[in-house]
């Protein structure tokens, strides 16, 4: 599943429209503890989190994730979005809850692990 397809699946808004949505999503994850995500993050991951500060982008980039997904219409602050744009990390925000986002990803065949 591409980032563009995930955006449609979870009715999300792309907060980094300047970036390509062609990146392939190979697995999904949900967690708000960054240090936990550092230990379990993986390449190509779509990561659902309510955290929006700068370190979120750093974790996603270092783990070579496909995108960051914010649930419940949470907005990422401008400073973090700038960093996401600079680093080429797509950020989506969806009106759905984290639970429903993950449910839809799972039902569409996005696995928990690569």
């Amino acid at each position: 599943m591409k980032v563009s397809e995930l955006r449609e699946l979870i009715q999300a808004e792309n907060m980094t429209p300047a970036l390509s949505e062609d990146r392939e999503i190979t697995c999904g994850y949900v967690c708000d503890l960054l240090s936990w995500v550092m230990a379990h993050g993986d390449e190509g991951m779509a990561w659902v989190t309510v955290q929006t500060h700068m370190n979120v982008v750093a974790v996603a980039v270092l783990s070579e994730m496909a995108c960051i997904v914010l649930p419940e219409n949470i907005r990422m602050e401008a400073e973090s979005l700038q960093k996401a744009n600079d680093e080429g990390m797509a950020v989506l925000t969806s009106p759905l809850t984290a639970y429903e986002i993950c449910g839809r990803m799972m039902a569409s065949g996005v696995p928990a692990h690569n």
Partner: protein
Amino acid sequence: MSELMKASYPVEAADYTSAGSASADIKRRLKKLGISGDVLRRVAVASYEVELNLVIHSLGGVLDLSVYPEYVQLVSTDRGPGIPDLSLAMREGWSTANDEARSLGFGAGMGLPNMKRNADGFDIQSTVGVGTTIQMKFNLT
């Protein structure tokens, strides 16, 4: 053995805004040297963990990168406060992170175990009142 590259990054205590900039630069430099894939990812994750440890737990320190033909070496040296019980600090889930760190989503107690898991060689030495040194090696061959 001759070094291909050497770089040193001072890391300040509680500087959450710049946290990750050393790791990002290390990743960029290694990429330029043609290092990629699994090794690059493991170095990136471990360097971020050790950089965040300096920010969260230390009084400030330095992260040193050295690249040799056979391996990448990361050495973190801080100015204290030192770790009283290393075996406890190495245990997954154990953390002494403060409220500020926890509010940002850190402090899961995964940092040191995650470094050890990602590195091919891991050594930690700590003296209370003096400081902590962490050495990690990542094989390139």
